């Protein structure tokens, strides 16, 4: 015998409906007035019940109508829409896998991805690989429309920017500043143990600073201890024009371990405020060279 695993075919539904309609007409014709009144009352109750069900259903799906609007907004940006489609396809696959071990692990990973997406939507991009960061750093410095790069170097170790990628970044700074592609200014916060009193900072930091000074990068310098009351200024960041701010985290060997790049204008403004405060505490490096300080 043939069975239907899903909905029956349309012609069968139509035939049944037609048969029921004929049966109802015959019954109506043969029924007494009392029965007819009872039937109309029952029908009205059914219609009323249906309306209530539909209203309940609409109120339940109201949030879905917002999601439709979101989908329409996303569709306007083809690049983001493509990412959305790919993520949706992955989510469908995840949802269809009921494995009890896989599912909690997947949900845990999804929470991390959600957090990351949330930070991304706040304009923050995070790089954990030094090499990846260097590529992005170069792209940023070379990007059209960027004319001023203000950098704060928080030097806690003598190895600061002395490794391969750090050296390459220094050379990139010098090259771009020399060529007049961007104007670079830097404030160096130097840990006290790396800057003996009445002397220049110790090597190799002094060489690193001298090199930049001789390439006419405007350098200012401040001792870490002078910022004891302003600990929020003790950080390593760069302001790319008025477009982005980058925060650099280094390990004890002075290597960049994490680089956070934010395109949030409020953060850029905050970084500019910090820059201005640091300018108050710092002194021109050339005055230090001039033995004025």
């Amino acid at each position: 015998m043939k069975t239907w695993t899903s909905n029956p075919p349309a012609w069968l539904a139509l035939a049944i409906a037609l048969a029921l309609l004929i049966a109802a007409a015959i019954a109506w014709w043969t029924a007494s007035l009392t029965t007819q009144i009872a039937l109309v009352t029952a029908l009205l109750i059914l219609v009323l019940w249906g309306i209530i069900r539909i209203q309940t259903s609409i109120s339940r799906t109201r949030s879905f109508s917002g999601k439709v609007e979101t989908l329409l907004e996303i569709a306007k940006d083809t690049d983001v829409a493509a990412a959305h489609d790919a993520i949706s396809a992955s989510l469908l696959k995840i949802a269809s896998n009921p494995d009890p071990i896989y599912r909690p692990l997947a949900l845990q990973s999804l929470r991390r991805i959600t957090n990351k997406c949330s930070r991304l939507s706040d304009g923050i991009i995070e790089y954990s690989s030094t090499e990846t960061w260097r590529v992005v750093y170069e792209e940023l410095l070379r990007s059209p429309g960027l004319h001023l790069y203000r950098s704060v170097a928080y030097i806690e170790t003598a190895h600061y920017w002395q490794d391969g990628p750090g050296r390459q970044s220094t050379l990139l700074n010098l090259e771009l500043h020399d060529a007049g592609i961007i104007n670079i200014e830097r404030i160096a916060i130097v840990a006290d143990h790396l800057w003996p009193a009445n002397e220049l900072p110790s090597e190799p930091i002094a060489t690193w600073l001298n090199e930049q000074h001789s390439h006419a990068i405007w350098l200012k310098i401040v001792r870490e201890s002078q910022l004891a009351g302003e600990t929020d200024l003790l950080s390593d960041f760069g302001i790319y024009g008025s477009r982005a701010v980058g925060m650099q985290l280094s390990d004890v060997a002075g290597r960049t371990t994490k680089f956070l790049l934010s395109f949030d204008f409020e953060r850029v403004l905050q970084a500019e405020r910090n820059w201005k405060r640091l300018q108050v505490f710092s002194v021109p490096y050339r005055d230090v060279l001039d033995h004025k300080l």
Partner: protein
Amino acid sequence: MHDVLYLDTARLGRMSHRTFRAATDVARVAHEQGSTLYFDDFMRCGGSILNAAELSRYPSFADWQGPARLSDRIRTLAGAGEMWQVVFASRSANLMSLAARLQFRLCRKVLVTDLSWPFYEQLHLREQQKSRNALHRVEIHDDILRRQCTLDELLDKVVTHYLAQGCDGLFLPLVDHRGIRLPIQQLVTRIREKAELRFCVVDAAQAFQHVPLELFSDYCDLVIAGCHKWLASHVPMGLAFYGREPSRRFIDESIARWLKDGSLGDPLLQYTNELLTGNANAYGETTALQPLLTANAAAIDAQDGFTGIDHSKNREAVLSCIADSHWQAILPDRSFDSQVILIESPSHPLVDPRRHFLQHGVAVTAYDNGIVRLALPKSPIDSHSLRLLSAALR
């Protein structure tokens, strides 16, 4: 051409006697011997390598003692300390571009005035635009010449603009082409008391050998000058001075780097650098060497001729001639005086004032608006010359 009372040094100075001999000998050797390896040796080491016969044939070559000695002489005339370096260039415009390029590497907003020489102003503007940094222009010409403002009033105005606009650089003429002498040292001191001054460029094209540069005071980072006006070399050659401790090294290294990468393309600068360092470039651009020899001769004459002449006597005599005529002197406050006097005659405007004065035996500079510039000579003006001037002013 007849002898004239030459009051046009601010445009092109008269060639000094020793300079004339040097220029003649350079022309003669070019005609008689061309340029040989021996000439390169001579340029490097000086006249001491020539034998007696050569020296008797070209006597002025004994004055040349190599580029280092020329640097010493020029440095002394500029009142600069030993640490100051002198750069020679075939065109002072190339040095102006270099100065602006250096300045906009360091400065984000440079204060300039309406006293800048228009051509230098253009070069400065070009570098500013390339660097995408900013300029702030302060109008002071009328304050000084028309409203006779005092030194303090001028300083207050410029410093106020500097602070209000957040400037961090200065580009000013020490003496402008109309003879206004700016008190740059005092201005720089006032600014440094209140704000950051990252790089100060001084245009001394009208000041070198006209007023003391006093570079020993280390008030500026780079000075641009030339040889063809008040030094009396007559042959143009650009000069730049730098040596202030905080900026000397980066100027040094920037010049070396830009010479190497070809972005500083002045052949004389390249050549003198080769002479001083010994790193010859066989494929470099050919340059005229006459400016080095004439500048050297003019520098010797300038050192020898320092007799402490009282220039005020020339000034008084010329002002007396002007007072007896229908011309009026446009005089600023004494603080801005130089050896240049501007005159005008609103009641008797001349169509071609420069030709009019020359017909009376007086060489002057004339501007379109009827203003005439008189650049007073260093030597005393004799009575005959004063009569020529009086006749021209009548």
